[in-house]
């Protein structure tokens, strides 16, 4: 077997890296202010990555680089959704960034680098690979938030993000080193093995676990490691917010799966009680604080916190049901968030950000179709049938109930009920209030079609969620049980 063919499972990453380098050079020669060529290349790269990921998919689990890297169904599915999220993000934000002079080669290259980081994270089966991917992704994101150099609020957000991110990385590394000390390995499977066979110093092990969970919680943005979320979401240009709020959550989910559900599975009693506290706090704080927000981006930030709490509920339930529903929830969350931020960008124009609640007043009179799409998205976020958000919540809740955490499920339903208020408030503003501005809405054809696709997908998936759900269930089953 030649060396190249052993690299088969990592072809997508290699292709991406090559293409990023090519785009870096090509972009130097693109004089067009709109960077059309670069943009097309980026989209083609994403398409190529998807094709490679699909065509190199093999049944079962493949390891390479001395078990530092793993390729299984879960990683392939999550990667595909990452490509999709990134591609949609680019379509939504193109015009928005162009009028702000931010649609530059750096932006696209950084986005691709962050994608590479996510892919490494998703496929990591070694603590070092995980950390590598995490940092690659994070550094690119820090830089993107700071891309709008003349905006004080964006710079401040980037600063906070960077410092707190560094702190979180420190916690994570500290935890990993303790795990290494306790088990003598950094490889996920070996760590799991060592713990199962008994380690001399269990105190150390659990100590390390706490720090790892803290680092993870930061990436997901759950309470009390959430403080960066509202400020960064609010401060960053909406396009960057959209990127931070979507694909990285899929990578973070993979992170949780690899470390907690695989590597530290024998410590499930310990980490699931920790996740329980994080989930309860996140859902409560996220949903309650979101009510007080007048800025839509901040509101989405708190809504993200609440959603991540919900996702943790699925994880802590465990089993195929629990992990599968958590993965489903993550994918659906990404889809809804793309639509939500996409809508803000669609309504924005030069010198105007449509990111306050008042900007959505009377949207139905200005554009009934957009209002309808936004209504679908809001219904889905609130978890109202027949949209897919309902099904996502339902599957997580049924996993929680099946494992006997009834009070937890009741609590989740109650706070979701509180959360429904601020989602429905937007619907009320759109349909029952008079518009504050009568500036006509100009839709780009590509993003206009995409938002329709996005809204309709939220509805259709809610009506026929079966396929996606079974893909998620099979993915987690394969990656967990075959180890």
């Amino acid at each position, binding site marked *: 077997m030649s060396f190249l063919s052993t690299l088969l499972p990592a072809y997508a990453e290699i292709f991406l890296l090559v293409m990023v380098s090519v785009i870096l050079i090509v972009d130097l020669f693109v004089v067009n202010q709109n960077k059309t060529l670069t943009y097309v290349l980026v989209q083609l790269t994403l398409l190529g990555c998807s094709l490679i990921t699909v065509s190199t998919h093999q049944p079962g689990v493949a390891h390479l680089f001395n078990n530092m890297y793993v390729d299984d169904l879960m990683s392939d599915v999550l990667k595909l959704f990452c490509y999709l999220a990134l591609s949609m993000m680019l379509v939504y934000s193109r015009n928005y960034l162009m009028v702000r002079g931010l649609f530059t080669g750096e932006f696209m290259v950084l986005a691709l680098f962050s994608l590479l980081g996510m892919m490494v994270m998703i496929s990591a089966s070694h603590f070092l690979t995980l950390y590598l991917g995490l940092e690659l992704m994070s550094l690119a994101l820090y830089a993107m938030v700071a891309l709008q150099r003349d905006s004080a609020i964006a710079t401040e957000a980037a600063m906070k993000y960077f410092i*707190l991110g560094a702190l979180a990385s420190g*916690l994570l590394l500290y935890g990993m080193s303790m795990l290494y000390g306790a088990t003598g390995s950094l490889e996920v499977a070996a760590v799991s093995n060592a713990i199962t066979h008994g380690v001399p110093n269990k105190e150390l092990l*659990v100590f390390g676990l706490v720090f790892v*969970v803290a680092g993870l919680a930061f990436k997901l943005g759950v309470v*009390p490691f959430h403080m960066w979320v509202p400020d960064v979401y609010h401060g960053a240009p909406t396009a960057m917010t959209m990127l931070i709020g979507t694909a990285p959550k899929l990578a973070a989910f993979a992170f949780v799966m690899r470390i907690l559900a695989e590597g530290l599975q024998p410590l499930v009693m*310990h980490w699931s009680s920790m996740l329980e*506290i994080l989930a309860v706090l996140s859902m409560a704080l996220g949903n*309650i*604080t979101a009510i007080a927000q007048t800025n839509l981006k901040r509101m989405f930030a708190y809504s993200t916190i609440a959603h991540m709490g919900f996702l943790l509920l699925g994880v802590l339930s465990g089993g195929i049901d629990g992990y599968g529903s958590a993965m489903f929830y993550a994918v659906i969350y990404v889809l809804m968030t793309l639509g939500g931020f996409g809508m803000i960008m669609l309504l924005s124009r030069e010198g105007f950000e449509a990111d306050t609640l008042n900007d959505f007043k009377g949207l139905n009179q200005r554009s009934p179709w957009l209002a309808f799409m936004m209504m679908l998205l809001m219904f889905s976020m609130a978890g109202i049938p027949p949209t897919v958000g309902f099904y996502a919540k339902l599957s997580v809740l049924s996993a929680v109930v099946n494992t006997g955490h009834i009070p937890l499920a009741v609590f989740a339903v109650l706070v979701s009920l509180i959360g429904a208020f601020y989602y429905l408030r937007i619907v009320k503003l759109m349909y029952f209030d008079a518009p504050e501005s009568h500036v006509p809405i100009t839709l780009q054809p590509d993003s206009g079609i995409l938002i329709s696709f996005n809204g309709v997908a939220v509805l259709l998936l809610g009506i026929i969620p079966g396929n996606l759900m079974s893909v998620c269930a099979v993915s987690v089953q394969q990656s967990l049980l075959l180890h």
Partner: protein
Amino acid sequence: MQNLYLLVPVAPLIGAVAAGLFGRQLGRTWSHRITIAMVAVSFFASVAIFRDVVFGGHAFNGAVYKWLTSGETSFEIGFLIDRLSAMMMLVVTFVSLMVHIYTIGYMEEDTGYQRFFSYISLFTFSMLMLVMSNNFMQLFFGWEAVGLVSYLLIGFWYTRPTAIYANLKAFLVNRVGDFGFLLGIGLILMVFGTADYAAVFAIAPNHANDLAPIPGVSWNMMSAICILLFIGAMGKSAQFPLHVWLPDSMEGPTPISALIHAATMVTAGIFMVARMSPLFEMSDTALSLIMIVGAITALFMGLLGIIQNDIKRVIAYSTLSQLGYMTVALGASAYSVALFHLMTHAFFKALLFLAAGSVIIGMHHDQDIRNMGGVRKYMPITHWTFLIGSLALIGFPFLSGFYSKTSILEAVEASHLFGSGFAYVALLLGVFVTAFYSFRLYFLVFHGEERFGASQHDHQGDHADEEVSSDHHHGLAPGEKPHETPWVVWLPLVLLAVPSMIIGYIAVEPLVFGNFFRDAVYINSEHYHALKHMLDEFHGPGAMALEDLESLAFWLAMGGVASSWFLYMKRRDIPQKLSQKFGFIYTVLDNKYYFDRFNDWFFAGGARGASRFLWKFGDVKLIDGLMVNGTARLVGLFSGVLRRFQTGYIYHYAFSMIIGVFVLLTIRNWFE
């Protein structure tokens, strides 16, 4: 055959949908053509089924469509076609067909023509679903559906406040009955675990001595079920004290009064009890209650008919009274007799109502009998058919009502249940009362001096609720004479007069004594020998009529006719004096025993008071104030507090993370 079963209810439904949704496009003529054709289809299918069931000996009991399954219980649309339902289908479709034809003439000038046809076809569908049902859920569906259509039709002239008042009243009073009915069905589902008639009847004997699953009391369960079901029947069949809605329902157009409030819907309660006979046979208590309630209704509602001046209201009270007769027969376990009276009553009461409607048309929608008189020579067909109907009603020998009423009296006489003595006396007195008010009406309308055409109608002493509706009383102009109505109106009268005369003679032997219903009604004959006793004394319909000439009932009826002739033809001054002399009794009757007054004060007033309390205190203060707005305010408060944590200072954020790690480290110890 099964397709034919399906055709019977579906055909009127098609007609109803066509006239209701596409009435404007179809126009008036096509609307009535389609609906009448559909009901005719339904009628002829019913005839075929009747022949098949009675002469072919076929019966059917099965599901057509499964609606839903809940746990162990499945709810189906199913048909039970036996002799009982076949007879009911025949009666319903026949009367319905007559009323459909009659409506062409009666509603000619009305703007809601298509809507009316749609409603009565919808009613026919609902009623057929009710009688053809083989399970309690479908029975309940039909039960509620006929109630709904009845509501719509009483309020057909929805711009008239009295009509709206009347239909609301009918709806609310029926709700009381339906509440009991639904509880009964619920109890059956709970105890037997199935809604299917046959299954319930099969299991029922095993539960004969069970106690009702109501905590704190030790009632026999079958009695509880039967009484609850009968409360439903009381609402629908307007039995005391839930009778109050029926007289007011006369606000609806006359064809409706004939179809729904005389011939079919109000007999649904009677039908239901007969259908449930295997259950009712297990409870003496329930049967006694039924008999007493029926007897009270039969006598005291008849008395009210004496002082009414609205032609339709007199017949309405007579309907109440006759329903009481049927109920008493049920109580005496003489189900077949009750059904027999149901059938004959359907024919002659529909006839009376339609004839009254014909008079009303002739009088240009004046319904006050004090403004009529001598109509006989202007409207001969109406006169003769009305006379036939009246004679049938009072039980004149050889006419249909005679056979059914006499059978009821005999059955009650032979019954030994608690209350049967009272019931027998009440029914006998009722015979006199019936004859009296029927012929008072007959004489006042068709004989005597011609009082119509007076420019100023005397409304003194009239009921308040009738007066409000006087905008509809046009009356004849001075000098104008009434005319016989067009053929579409009188043809149904003639067609209904025929069964009113002969159906009793034909049917009494097979229906009452010939075990016509076979398994459809169940009688515990060891317990209740009323029918057996009657059978011993029966020597054919002709002999029965001749024997009756010596009976007390016959002479009471003749006495009633004679005294009404004396008082209203010979000495018209006496009623006036009597009402002054016995002012107290007259006032009580005039106020319908103060039932409406009491209901208005106690139930309506009480409900309003309770509602006001619940609204002001329960809803506004507790639910809205404390619960809804309270939680919202609390959440808002929290929200305001929580957002303060987001200070914007990076060291606060870092501090929060450290605290988080610290908390996670410590809780580890809690769980170990």
